[in-house]
């Protein structure tokens, strides 16, 4: 297991470097030139050269890439000041350090992700399991049809609808916004309640369906039948024997969902005008801001890789065949 984690971590680092390289060269190879964009209409060659120099765009490309990547571990000096260790460069557009921008935005995304995940893991998987346990009954039918309807909604449909009802018409709630939990936990909670609920509603429906079908599949397994043949009660068989196997596909999807949400829930953030990582990624692309885009990309990729490793560890925990082979 230890060897496995080491090997995966090394693999993840290599992947990060490759992703960085790919993003960087794609961006550089793109036909637009940030310097001439920043220079504006009345641009003189001398001014263009100044801008290039200021942004480091006059250096050879591999040098630029090296500066960026080495800055992440060693920090970097810019004319505007020092950028310490996890330095993702300085935004072309705003001139802010990318790392501190990301750190400003991250709590919003983290709150959305964790809040959403808590809701859809507990409610979604719970409802799916209950539906499977009471298969064919009214409970099952209600859970199945409700989740069917909800999972076909989209955030950009449900979001404005909810805003209209709870914020604009009735005024029951303020416009969604992030407030640091350290300032006022209640404001933190209520501030992002609507986005979290809207986002997790759709995920919950998907997880209900997935948990139900996965559970039903497991209940048909021969080893589950053997457990019943031993006289174990239905409840015991359900929660000890069938449950474990049904978790494997769920953990897989959960890993993908959480890691992509940590990298920015673009649609949710745009729908509710929140300032999260997803918004940042859009800004970077719109403004052709190479350091910002690179930073957000690597930040997202980092989470994908971490969550991937965690998913594999979860597999090993669930299934001894993974652990012992």
């Amino acid at each position: 297991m230890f060897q496995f984690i080491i090997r995966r971590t090394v693999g993840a680092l290599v992947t990060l470097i490759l992703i960085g390289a790919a993003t960087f060269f794609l961006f550089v190879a793109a036909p637009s030139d940030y310097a001439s964009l920043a220079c504006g209409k009345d641009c003189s060659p001398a001014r263009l050269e100044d801008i290039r120099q200021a942004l480091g765009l006059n250096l050879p490309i591999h040098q630029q890439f090296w500066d960026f990547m080495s800055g992440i571990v060693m920090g970097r000096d810019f004319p505007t000041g020092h950028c310490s260790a996890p330095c993702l460069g300085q935004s072309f557009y705003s001139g802010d350090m990318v790392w501190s921008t990301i750190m400003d935005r991250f709590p919003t995304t983290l709150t959305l992700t964790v809040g959403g995940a808590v809701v859809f893991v507990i409610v979604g998987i719970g409802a799916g399991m209950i539906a499977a346990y009471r298969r064919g009954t009214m409970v099952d039918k209600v859970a199945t049809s409700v989740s069917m309807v909800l999972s076909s909604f989209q955030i950009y449909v449900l979001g404005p609808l909810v805003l209209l009802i709870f914020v604009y018409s009735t005024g029951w709630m303020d416009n969604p916004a992030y407030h640091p939990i350290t300032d006022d936990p209640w404001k933190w909670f209520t501030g992002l309640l609507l986005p979290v609920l809207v986002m997790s509603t759709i995920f919950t429906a998907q997880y209900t369906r997935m948990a139900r079908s996965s559970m039903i599949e497991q209940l048909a397994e021969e080893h589950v039948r053997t457990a019943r043949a031993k006289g174990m009660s239905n409840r015991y068989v359900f929660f000890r024997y069938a449950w474990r196997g049904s978790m494997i596909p769920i953990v897989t999807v959960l890993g993908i969902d959480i890691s992509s949400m940590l990298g920015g829930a673009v649609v949710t953030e745009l729908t509710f005008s929140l300032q999260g990582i997803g918004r940042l990624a859009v800004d970077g692309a719109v403004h052709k801001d190479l350091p910002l885009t690179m930073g957000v990309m690597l930040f997202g990729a980092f989470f994908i890789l971490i969550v991937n490793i965690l998913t594999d560890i979860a597999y090993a925990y669930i299934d001894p065949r993974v652990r012992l082979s």
Partner: protein
Amino acid sequence: MSDNLTLPAQQGSAGTSTEPLLKVEGLTKHFPIYGGFPIKRKVGAVQAVDGVDLTVGVGESVGLVGESGCGKSTTGRLITRLLEPTDGKITYAGQDITHASRRQLAPVRSEIQMIFQDPYSSLNPRQTVGSIIKSPMEVNGIEPEGGQEKKVRELLELVGLNPEHYNRFPHEFSGGQRQRIGVARALALQPKLIVADEPVSALDVSIQAQVVNLLKKVQDELGIAFLFIAHDLAVVRHFSQRVAVMYLGKVVEVGDRESIYNRPRHPYTHALLSAVPEVDIDGTGPNRERIRLSGDVPSPILPPSGCRFRTRCWKAQDKCATDEPPLVQISGNKAGHLTACHFPEDPTTEARDEDVVMDPALLALEDAAESDTVPTKD
């Protein structure tokens, strides 16, 4: 059936013909295992097939028997070149095809066909029976007299299916009928050798005999040679003139049917035969020897040194661990009956004075039962 399918059948020549159709020498397949830390590398190999010698004469049926993991299926796949041999030599009709390229292999491919075990997964569910049987002809650009469709109908009739069913899909057929479709497909290219990998073991008892009889008919009438791979010794006995017994990647005994089934010499062959459950019709009880091995077949990753059967053999001595017994004609054997054993058994399958029971649990239970009850010898 059109007579252009008929090859000179070698009737009556039970042994090897002078010029074998297929000759396999030292055939070896090792599947590498990767592992290790920090960099993965080859750490070992599954020695699935390890130096197999085998010949199949023109029109002859050779049975290849053994338990799971003995490498019999891998051998079949190597011969049909679905797998690339690690070592050894495969000669088909005088031509070395061991590492023949796709292009070199093309003419041979049509002459060596395969029938698979599972009639459910080996037929494409989205193709009609007609196109399944026709496709080998299309791939090889063969245009038989009267057209491909006529030929397909002839083949369907030959394997005992209604030619009208040309446009049906595999799921409309039962398991036995699907296996007939598989046979028809194999016959489409007028092969000279068919490698049949457990062709009847997925079928019900009453259906098995239908397919065995069909294969027998095909063999007799069309003079096609068979390599019949199966774990069921009774079926193989019924179908094959010569039989090779495999254990852990090696042939331990080979000979004509009479030698293997009535005069076996290798202890493993004895054990295998004695394990076959036979219907005791007249109620006299079996007059066959009773041999009960212990445990399962060892892993082919680290097979025992010397003779691979020695870990489960009741006759094993020190020599068996150090010297690998060669597959030779030992004294008392008929010509062509080869055995790889240092200490062969007597050539009989009759009951012994004392059963060979290697399994510790069986021994304990039987000893306890014997000491409990008053000895009533029958």
